[in-house]
């Protein structure tokens, strides 16, 4: 509306700006500085030492963990999106308004329930003598190794991201123009064709953003890799903790953290770009 900053306008705009600059931007900037510090005798000393970057970037285990983390998170986000879609589709387009409100409400609940506790509870389902193998044993199958596998990490990732993905998909599907769907039906388009050529394209932005959020959550998670994956394969979050174990190597941990932030930002920009380019078409 009006462009001239007024005392009134600034009163509302500035507090958040100041807070985020002082307590968010500056810590991240400090992280950059920290990545150049030197460690001696368990003490982290200010320095301009590029060696930390060399040590991390030249290590095979870093790139391996990088690849593993990226692949696991991408898989997690893909599976979450695929599993969530029929669910969100049903909630958004098939349920009555009242049931939909309840479904959405129920999906909010896990979002505010301790993720640590939920991940820990999965151990009982997945262990060799756990609930799933117990049920399988009745049918004469198993036992299968489920816990301490990449599959278990994915279960954890889904625990973390599925509710959010479903919610975001529900919101974007709710706003799909129904007359478009009816038009497709009137043109005798098959059900699947309607879904793939009408509904998914028009909800594309929401679907991509939902997948992106799932990726971000999984990429930085250390609970699932440690408590469900049994600490292997090594993810970046595990590598960060391990790195600090050689006599307070926080600077090297900072290098890994910065690489993670860079990756997340790049992925986010690419995803948003992809989402909106597709939406405009």
């Amino acid at each position, binding site marked *: 509306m009006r462009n001239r900053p007024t005392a009134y*306008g600034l009163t509302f705009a500035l*507090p*958040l700006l100041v807070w*985020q600059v002082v307590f968010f931007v500056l*810590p991240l900037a400090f992280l950059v500085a920290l990545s150049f510090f030197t460690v001696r005798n368990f003490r982290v000393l200010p320095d301009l030492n590029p060696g930390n970057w060399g040590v991390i970037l030249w290590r095979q285990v870093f790139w391996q963990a990088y690849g593993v983390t990226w692949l696991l998170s991408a898989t997690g986000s893909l599976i979450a999106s695929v599993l969530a879609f029929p669910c969100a589709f049903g909630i958004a387009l098939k349920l009555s308004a009242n049931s939909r409100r309840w479904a959405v409400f129920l999906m*909010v609940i896990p979002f505010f329930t*301790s993720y640590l506790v939920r991940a820990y509870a999965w151990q009982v*389902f997945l262990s060799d003598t756990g609930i799933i193998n117990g049920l399988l044993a009745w049918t004469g199958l198993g036992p299968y190794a489920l816990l301490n596998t990449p599959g278990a990490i994915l279960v954890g990732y889904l625990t973390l991201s599925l509710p959010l993905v479903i919610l975001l998909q529900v919101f974007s599907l709710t706003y799909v123009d129904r007359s478009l769907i009816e038009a497709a039906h009137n043109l005798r388009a098959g059900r699947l064709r309607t879904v793939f050529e009408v509904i998914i394209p028009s909800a594309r932005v929401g679907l991509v953003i939902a997948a992106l959020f799932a990726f971000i959550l999984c990429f930085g998670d250390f609970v699932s890799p440690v408590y469900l994956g049994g600490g292997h394969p090594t993810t970046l979050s595990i590598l*960060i903790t391990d790195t600090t174990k050689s006599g307070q190597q926080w600077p090297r941990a900072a290098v890994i953290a910065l690489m993670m932030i860079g990756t997340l930002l790049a992925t986010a920009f690419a995803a948003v770009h992809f989402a909106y380019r597709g939406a405009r078409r």
Partner: protein
Amino acid sequence: MSPNRDPNRSALIDTALRVWIILCFVFVFAPIAASFVFSFNSDRFPTIPLGHFTTDWYRLVVADPLVWSGLWNTLKVAGAVGVLATVLGFGAAYTDHRHDFFGKQAYLALALLPPTIPAVILGLAMLAYLSRLTLSGSAVSVIIAHVVICAPFAMALIRLRLSQMDAALEPAAWNLGATEWGAMRHVILPFCAPAILAALFITMAVSSDEFAVAWFVSGLNETLPVKVLGFLQGQVSPRINVIGSFVFVVSIGLVIAAQLLMAGRGARPYEE
């Protein structure tokens, strides 16, 4: 939304979708239900078959003064975070709603970015930074960090509400002689009240469940979720499930309150 008798609707597919929805809910709620069950199980380690029913773990938790101090810290932090994050979030949402200015994209990015940074990284950066300001290891540092994470949630909620407001409402108030502050007080704030309360509850809920950043910066003033992490890393104990169930019930309370407030007064014009 009347059930339309569409020839394209197939009962089979509808049923399949409903079954799928239920399966998704089962997946999401299975661990929550399990932790409830195991909080009443006599065995220290959660294994099948179950031991016998017991409330011993609840008694141990109640008798542990450290849990109480953790709870007290959590409530203190969550209360402060809720208020601060909501105030900051409201300001940002209103700014986004009302003004167009150079650098607005950057402003919004800054306002919404923090939840996308993994908590481990944010915790590490916060600890290193706050300890240089000698702010680390106190409840204050947890509050600072949680406001950074929570303010975007508050902003998103309030922004959503503002977008439901008739854009002509505020100028109309000015035309009737109200000052900007007057319009804020008599038009904007009442209209946003349900969203503000919802934001308050949800930011409190997020804060009372956050453990990763809090572990780094809390020092001796641990919050309850940090204690849970400690129980998990150290002594595996069903007390994890007890505290988890407790936090669950509290968070649910806050969420239901937020839901009722949003649905009660707020959402009516929108739902029509």
